């Protein structure tokens, strides 16, 4: 393989953005601008699918590795993928075109700038998932702040400035400690190349502090309780496409980071800090689910449910069981699809009624039947009904948790019940019941593009719910190798 397929994946959206930069967006060429962006992201999606087909599932080695000197004697630009990262890349390239299609009247001004931000964001996100050097990873991880800050701040709702600042500063604060840890690793081990670090291992006496530094960054990004407070604000104020990107992909960067770096580089520290993660995850699951019950704003409710779902993910990761880790990755993929769809569903009604409050709605089932069906599907997927992708992930995570720690698993299972409660209650209050608000009668059902986007998300949600084999096959070898190395390191010390 000489063709640098991963670099092309990273670069393509930026090139598309570069073209958009030279088109002034006005009423006339808004369509053109959108098509250029859509075309770019679709090409990227098919490239990612092609990558998935080429991907060799039988090995846990990194594939499609590109290794170039970047800063001489210091850092190499190194990218490559294994079973863990490829799914996230496919997810990213799948969600981005949907985001671009979903951009409609809600973005009134500066459309081309908005699409530029989204495309650049896509570049950075793909970069995060395939970088095999800590500095390169940090670069992509942090760079994503810039477009997201602008997306929330320029095109967001009324409290957008507060939310954008909170998002930026929270994440930055977490990340700077990770930068210190990365540079320290360079001085401790003499390299920041992840593959070499896997082989060399990091001296046990440094691992705890380094783990904590990485944790501070990932915990904010995940987000874990108690540093999750930026997420509801950011979600509520961001425009729909921004919320979708945030929920579907940005949150996954941290989960991915936990697996790749926390488990992979610091196994001894991970073992020590597992109780901490368990505690925080369980609190996140129960506490934020309860908060979600009380929300009046639909977007906020879904945001809190995201925190709870990510609680499951972190719980699953640190069970260090085959099922738990596989479940976590499936849960992340599924959450990527479902949360994206739910935010889009909220966007649909918001575009029509300009309200996100639950009590504005009620009894819309007969007015917008198509919407109600799809919304129900995603509600059920979010609460993990068997037959949807949400079930597979949650089930595997709980199975892994039962193997490792009975009590934690029991409490987490309670969270599933509360999760069902708030999702169903949300659905009941919005869709069923008496039609009180007479303005709702003017609501129009899904138009073609909305129907298309939601169906695109519904198909994989159902498909992977019934048949998760393709996903599991892809990640299985890499995960089992990760666990093998992990246990080897633990016993070795």
């Amino acid at each position, binding site marked *: 393989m000489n063709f640098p397929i991963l670099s092309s994946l990273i670069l393509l959206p930026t090139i598309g953005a570069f073209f958009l930069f030279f088109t002034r967006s006005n009423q006339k060429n808004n369509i053109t601008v959108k098509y250029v962006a859509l075309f770019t992201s679709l090409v990227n999606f098919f490239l990612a699918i092609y990558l998935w087909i080429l991907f060799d599932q039988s090995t846990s080695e990194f594939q499609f590795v590109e290794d170039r000197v970047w800063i*001489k004697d210091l850092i190499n630009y190194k990218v490559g993928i294994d079973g863990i990262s490829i799914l996230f890349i496919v997810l990213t390239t799948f969600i981005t075109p949907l985001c671009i299609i979903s951009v409609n009247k809600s973005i009134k001004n500066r459309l081309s700038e908005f699409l530029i931000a989204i495309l650049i964001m896509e570049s950075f996100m793909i970069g995060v998932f395939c970088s095999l050097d800590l500095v390169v990873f940090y*670069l*992509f991880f942090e760079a994503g702040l*810039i477009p997201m800050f602008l997306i929330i701040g*320029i095109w967001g709702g009324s409290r957008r400035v507060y939310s*954008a*600042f909170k998002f930026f500063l929270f994440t930055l604060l977490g990340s700077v400690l990770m*930068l*210190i840890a990365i540079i*320290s690793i360079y001085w401790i081990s003499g390299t920041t190349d992840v593959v070499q670090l896997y082989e060399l291992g990091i001296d046990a006496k440094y691992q705890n502090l380094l783990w904590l530094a990485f944790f501070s960054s990932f915990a904010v990004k995940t987000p874990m309780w108690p540093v999750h407070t930026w997420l509801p604000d950011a979600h509520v104020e961001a425009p729909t496409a921004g919320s979708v990107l945030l929920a579907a992909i940005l949150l996954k960067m941290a989960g991915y980071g936990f697996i790749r770096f926390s488990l992979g580089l610091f196994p001894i520290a991970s073992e020590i800090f597992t109780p901490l993660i368990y505690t925080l995850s369980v609190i996140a699951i129960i506490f934020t689910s309860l908060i979600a019950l009380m929300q009046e704003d639909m977007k906020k409710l879904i945001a809190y449910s995201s925190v709870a779902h990510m609680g499951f993910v972190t719980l699953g990761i640190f069970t260090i069981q085959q099922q738990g880790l596989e479940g976590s990755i499936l849960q992340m993929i599924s959450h990527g699809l479902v949360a994206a769809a739910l935010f889009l569903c909220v966007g649909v009604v918001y575009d029509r009624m300009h309200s996100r409050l639950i009590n504005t709605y009620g009894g819309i089932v007969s007015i917008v039947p198509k919407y109600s069906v799809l919304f129900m599907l995603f509600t059920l997927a979010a609460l993990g009904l068997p037959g949807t992708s949400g079930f597979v992930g949650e089930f595997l995570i709980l199975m892994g948790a039962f193997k490792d720690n009975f009590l934690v698993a029991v409490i987490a299972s309670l969270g599933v019940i509360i999760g069902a409660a708030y999702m169903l209650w949300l659905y009941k209050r919005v869709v069923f019941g008496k039609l009180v608000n007479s303005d709702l009668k003017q609501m129009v059902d899904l138009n073609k593009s909305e129907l298309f986007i939601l169906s695109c998300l519904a198909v994989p949600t159902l498909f992977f719910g019934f048949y998760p084999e393709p996903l599991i096959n892809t990640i299985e070898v890499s995960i089992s190798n990760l666990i093998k190395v992990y246990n080897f390191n633990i016993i070795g010390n």
Partner: protein
Amino acid sequence: MTNLTLVFPEIFLSLSIMFLLILGVFKKNSSKLIQNISLIILLITSVITLNETLGIQEILLFNSSVIIDYLSSFMKIVTLLAAFLVLVISSNYLKILKIFKIEYPILILSSVLGMMIMISSNDLIVFYMGLELQSLALYVLATFNRDQLKSSEAGLKYFVLSALSSGLLLYGCSLIYGFTGSTNFNIIANQLNSNEYAITFGIVFILVGLAFKISAVPFHMWAPDVYEGSPTSVTLFFTMVPKIAALTVFIRFLYVPFLNLIDQWQMILIFLSIASMLFGAIAAIGQTNLKRLIAYSSIGHVGYTLAGLATGSNDGIQSSVIYITIYILMNLGLFSCLLMMKRNNKYFEDIEDLSGLSKNHPLISLSLLVILFSLAGIPPLAGFFAKFYIFKSVLEQSMYFLAIVGLLSTVVAAFYYLRIIKIMYFDKEKEKYDTDHGLWLKFSLMFSTLLILIYFIFPSQLIEVVSRINII
């Protein structure tokens, strides 16, 4: 005769200054001509420096009171180019303020001469001579808009406080001379006796003087007032050019004669660095005037530069040099934007005046966005790499406290950079600004923005150039 070719840049510059003075006296209305000649002189001087001295490992001249080495050549070229850019983009501003006089380029040239002498100095006396030459020119420059109260106030403040610091510095020099018997850096290094407390006193006094010149906390008080009061083009000069020379002297002074006393001065530098980083970040939050804000932000950046020096390693020195180079580049862009904010021949310098800039002037605000994110140290922009190198060398010496404080203060600093971005991008637009900017102004803004933006593609080049600096 070899001696003279090596200092030919300085000789050429001083002869040109004298020539320009005479020209200015005899030819009426020659400001434009003199401005253009000065620009050419700066370019020629930098070419001569490049030709004659770059590539020389280390040569001592004039009874080893002047040193020509890679550090001095590099810093001289940076100084000259920075001065060139300052001069070339400030002409429009000066014309509009009606202070486009022949003295302006000549004063800049003489302060540059002083800086070049400082950069090459290997002797306390030579160093002091250069320092005073540049300071005298800078006092006058600060008051250049003499009809304005603020400008006169800035100049007076700068003069009084600077004179005080020069006094402290001289006192330190005399202490060191008294206890080592020489003013030459190399001889001092040989004569050092670490049991003499007086030498430590001397170092402290000189450090105070130097810290004042680069406005490190707690000797920063003059900076916000002077930066705000001086004409913008002079502020631009202040934030960029004198810092290069002062940093070079800092490096030379700490690492040539007093490397063995590192235990004595390292703590001082760490304190200066931490205080500057924290104070620069926190004090800038409440500012409403852009020039004042830049003053505080430059205090913060000086803190990062000093963090590199505090490491006591070659890596640290190199990272500081890289930092100051990238910082100058960012500042150039920042001030280019500031100089573009004019409406009906009136310049605006409040943060609120940037409100909604992105709608009226999308390109300017995009450049400013890039520059500000880079100043905040967000990857993948150049400012991130500058900080990265600094913290890499800081952590090499296991100075974790310094690194953590430094990086946390970048988060605080990010807040006020974000605030400017917020005002530009999220707030309602105001009236449009004029768009008749000079070609050079546009060029310097584009030049700095593009370099900041694409630095991450070629990060090795600058390192390779700087890695030849070898002091220890």
